[in-house]
């Protein structure tokens, strides 16, 4: 199990489009992936969960991956956050 910390750099936060990108990326990997905001942990392969997280601009998020390809999964999702979900 590995963890990475990221911060949300998008002005609008995680709305439907970035959430869909996260889900599409996370679903490519076999391992389990979670996103944590504070005490809430949700499954990163479910779009409703990610939108429900209510992650706005500047919120710190912890990416947790557990499985055979956990490194690749965590890096791929970290890259999405860093590249501002190709929005800006």
């Amino acid at each position, binding site marked *: 199990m590995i963890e990475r910390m990221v911060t949300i750099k998008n002005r609008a936060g995680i709305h439907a489009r970035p959430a869909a990108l996260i889900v599409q990326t996370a679903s490519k990997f076999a391992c389990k992936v979670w996103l944590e905001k*504070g005490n809430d942990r949700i499954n990163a392969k479910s779009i409703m969960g990610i939108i429900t997280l209510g992650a706005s601009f500047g919120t710190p998020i912890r990416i947790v991956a557990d499985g055979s390809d956990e490194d690749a999964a965590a890096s791929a999702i970290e890259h999405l956050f860093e590249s501002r979900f190709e929005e800006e």
Partner: protein
Amino acid sequence: MEEKQFTVLDLLSLELKEQNALNLHCIGGREGLARSIAVPDINRPGLPLSGFFESFAWQRIHIFGRGESAFLQKLEDEGKTESLRRFFSFPIPACVFTHNLAPGKSFFEIAEASGCPILQTDLPSSELTSRILRVLSDLFAPQTTVHGVLVEVFGIGILISGDSGVGKSETALELIERGHRLVADDVVQIRCVNGSNLIGQGANKIIGHHMEIRGLGIINITHLFGVGAIRDNKQIQLVCSLEEWDPNKVYDRIGTDEKTTEILGVRVPTLEIPVKPGRNIPIIVETAAMNERLKKMGYHSAKEFNQNILRWLESENARAVYFNRDDYM
């Protein structure tokens, strides 16, 4: 991350209606509204008011009914404020006066000096006590969030769980189309009330009754199917765990395997349903719900079936002995 404290002001701001309403308003000690409520319990302060402070549960909310108010009046008349001062030397979360009664001047002075909020309600003490205990036990109930879909089928609350992509949302969609209700999709918040009831609801009111279906996207169930197709919360009585059919796994063929899942310390009956193309999962879930209803009424079909078989075999044995034939079978 620190837990958000539940303050007296939060208690006053709760939206409670009809038989849950507390009808509380603040009549003094306003700055104390920021005090937090740490335990879901109340106390009638008869003992400390008369000077006995051993085992004093000061962390509780204190309710002053007619008896307590009359005693306070007596103390006020006799000018005895010692027990009151000692009472308020503790960080009491709040004092509530029922029957719209109010305390005397010295009570107000001492309470406000120590920063304790004084609340008033028109409810009688017994009614207020049972309502406030209900509200507090709800708020302080242990809770967790699980990934799954919560539906109500024939009155049975079913949590459909399984890995992403196995078909939970699609199963729920067909169940809704067949007339059942959606409680929550994807993020289900579960609270354990009274130590044995699990109440599930959607984790976020804004998201409400939306579902994500691969190929369709996000759909609004309330708009598509109407208010008859949704429910805000439901007790979880059965867990249906969907999994990809595993040829190496042994699935229960008789129905007497009582599997359970533990959620917040409560064991919930669980069914493991293998998913394979061509299998009608929604009808299996519907039948499971009806079977569960039957079990609750006392009819356990699989056990009864086995007992009938045993009886039949016994009668066959008896007949064989009676006819004394070795080749009967």
